[in-house]
């Protein structure tokens, strides 16, 4: 009677290990394919346009909203201690070190990551990836590596945009609406943000970009191997949901780990 649950647990453990191994090999292949020629520069630019330029609007609104809320919340808290002058410092440090990289990665996962996962999933179930292999065309060089490189370029740039728009949003809420001194907002930001803080934000954005593109494209690529995904169109939809959830959770977990290690 006890054997069945233990057997299921064992099977699940083996499946998780197999899946991790598969995904690790996938990551190595995708990164090694960077050195394979010919490099698909046009596809790389197309992916930058899709992941980067295509996400600008959602990043702009998310950043503006986050910055303005931070401005209002920060003012409310700091005002209690008569420390409104610290608002610029609080908003900029929160955005540069934490919210900028995290929210940008989550937005990219939801918008571009899901699309990349579905694209590769559909290509896999309709034999398009097998067709590439049969033509002796490396699917990693042809399809996947341009997405990896584009994400590694786009996510840090989008994070920078997020930080700037967010800080501007905080300025609007704190200075224009709540009456904080504009000089102290700017001075607080300039004096408190160090190169170390910016470096932490940049490292995070690279790592999160890699996590999102790795998990999202990997789930799509392995759509036929994923347990419980089903078949056909249903499998693609399930795997796409799974990719967004997994990449979002991974971003949040790695955010804590990186902060703990690098702060």
């Amino acid at each position, binding site marked *: 009677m006890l054997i069945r649950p233990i057997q299921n647990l064992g099977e699940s453990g083996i499946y998780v290990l197999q899946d991790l191994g598969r995904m690790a090999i996938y990551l190595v292949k995708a990164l090694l394919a960077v050195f394979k020629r010919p490099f698909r520069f046009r596809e790389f630019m197309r992916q930058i346009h899709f992941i980067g330029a295509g996400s600008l609007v959602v990043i702009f609104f998310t950043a503006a909203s986050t910055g303005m809320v931070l401005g209002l919340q920060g003012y409310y808290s700091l005002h209690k201690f008569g420390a409104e002058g610290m608002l610029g410092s609080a908003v900029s440090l929160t955005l540069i070190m934490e919210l900028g990289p995290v929210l940008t990665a989550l937005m990219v996962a939801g918008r571009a990551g899901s699309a990349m996962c579905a694209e590769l999933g*559909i*290509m896999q179930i*309709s*034999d*398009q990836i*097998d*067709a590439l*292999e*049969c*033509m*002796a*065309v490396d699917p990693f060089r*042809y399809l996947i590596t341009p997405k990896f490189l584009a994400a590694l370029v786009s996510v840090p740039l989008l994070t920078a945009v997020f930080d700037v728009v967010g800080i501007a949003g905080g300025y609007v809420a704190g200075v224009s609406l709540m009456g904080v001194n504009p000089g102290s907002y700017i001075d607080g930001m300039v004096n408190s943000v160090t190169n170390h803080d910016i470096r932490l934000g940049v490292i995070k954005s690279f790592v999160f970009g890699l996590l999102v593109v790795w998990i999202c494209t990997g789930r799509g690529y392995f759509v036929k191997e994923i347990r419980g995904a089903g078949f056909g169109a249903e499998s693609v939809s399930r795997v796409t949901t799974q990719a967004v959830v997994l990449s979002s959770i991974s971003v949040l977990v790695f955010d804590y780990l990186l902060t703990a290690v690098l702060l």
Partner: protein
Amino acid sequence: MTVAIEFKEVEKHFPKRDGGLQRVLDRVSFTIPKGKTTVIAGRSGQGKSVTLKLILGLMKADGGSIHVDGKDVTNVGGRALEQLRTRFGVLFQGAALFDSLTVFENVALPLRERTSKGEEEIEALVSSTLGQLELLGHEGKYPAQLSGGMRKRVGLARALQLNPEIMLFDEPTTGLDPVMTQEIYQLFAETQARVGFTSIIVSHDIPKVFNLADQVIVLHQGEMDVFGRPEEIPLSKKEHIQAFVQTTMGEIYQSQQVEG
């Protein structure tokens, strides 16, 4: 007879949910003659597509060996596998055209990726193939804008670009009406006569490929039977072959009886 492909005691199995093994190919041996058409037949789930994937190196055999032109290719990988694959052309069940590329771009893809030919030469080669397959005028269309038959023809055009020695057709007429099916098989026969490749057609529908086959391999529960000609199949005394004949070759019997 020159042998193009040889399977020697090939085994392939997949894990089952209950922890056991499903033997798709159980020590299967056969040869595929060069320049001829071999049909691999059998009901769904009997390992027909697995056999194709083993030939193409998309799957690895769990036992035995696979030889192409006498060379053991069972465990080749990397560059050697790439070189091997350039000798094959494949027409997939759904044609496997790239949705984001036009007909011209789909057909030009292997030339752009696998050769150092210039754009002018590629354009000339693609146009020539499209002309032979009556696809001129459709170069700018996307796969979603094509009928099922046209998609198969575009898939065939793409597969022919690197002058394959061996063409593999995976259920090539699934989803096509009888008239279109006849047209497609007619096109295969004409193309094979012109190009001279070895043909392997995977199909569950023997009557439709009856006239094309020089050899038929019937797969059933991991085992196989080889027949020199399709006419020999009904003569088999094996129970599963008789069942297969009754379910898939009934219309041939009927037509033979009417002719008789």
